[in-house]
């Protein structure tokens, strides 16, 4: 399956807010480019979209979920790859979804991709996004005595700026 076909199958089934293929050329021989698919989908359809990926490929490889906050919006990107194991045939796809900052929540996809648990725990503690139905909601990367309601990936008042220490300056008392 080609990248264009993957994108077309998504376009057919979902209402995509953004859909593009970046052709990246980072090869010595410059014969062919590597396609990267980026799509944006509404929060309600997000889980269905991951389900759609699982229909395209029996077990899509989940790389990681990244995210950031811009203004009142939190944007999550789930990075998957299909067709791994086929020489020069792997397709990377980033599924984006936008959430409102005040009430950010996203359904868990661990039912479809069990390996997503670590990423879901991470976005929960790093961005303050509630993952609905997550099998294990404890903290993962942040230290145990890390203050609550501080989310390191955010850039607003809940971001980590107030607890930052500069080692070159004296001890904060």
């Amino acid at each position, binding site marked *: 399956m080609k990248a264009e076909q993957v994108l077309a199958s998504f376009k057919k089934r979902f209402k995509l807010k953004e859909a593009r293929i970046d052709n990246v050329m980072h090869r010595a021989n410059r014969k062919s480019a590597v396609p990267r698919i980026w799509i944006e989908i509404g929060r309600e359809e997000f889980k269905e979209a991951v389900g759609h990926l699982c229909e395209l490929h029996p077990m899509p490889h989940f790389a990681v979920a990244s995210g950031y906050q811009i203004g009142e919006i939190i944007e999550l990107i789930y990075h998957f790859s299909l067709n791994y194991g086929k020489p020069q045939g792997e397709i990377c796809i980033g599924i984006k979804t936008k959430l409102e900052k005040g009430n950010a929540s996203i359904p868990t996809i661990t039912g479809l991709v069990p390996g997503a648990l670590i990423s879901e725990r991470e976005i929960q503690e790093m961005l303050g996004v509630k993952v609905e139905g997550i099998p294990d909601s404890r903290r993962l990367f*942040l*230290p145990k*005595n*890390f203050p609550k309601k501080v989310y*390191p990936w955010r850039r607003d008042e809940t971001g980590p700026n107030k607890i*930052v220490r*500069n*080692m070159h300056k004296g*001890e904060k008392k």
Partner: protein
Amino acid sequence: MNLKALNKSLWAFHFNSGSCNGCDIEIIAALTPRYDVERFGIKLVGTPRHADILLLTGPVAMDMKEKLERVYAQMPSPKAVMLIGNCGNSGDVFYESYSLVGPADRIIPVDVYVPGCPPRPEAIIHGVVKVWQKLEKEAKK
């Protein structure tokens, strides 16, 4: 300080407080055949209770602070601490962070600093010699 306990080779305990692994593999490299400090009887031990020197690497992450203090307390006196690598000394590229509590000498007393990112095994061995000289000097007092 009673330094009679140190009239044999120094035994070291390695504590990684959040380093990138670079210093840690150079410490092991100092022990293995090319540099081979074990021929002097210097070796890594598995518990701080058997150790004379603490080889400390890393900029000390928040969660490791308490563990570092505990490990230091468990070491029998007389003891010395060797801080290996730039990030424990000054923070290096991690100087500004929300989850690091270094530099390490604010948490436990440090005797010898070995800068470098990572320091070569020769520098680490040189640091051990410095520890030795320092302890000898103190013993004479």
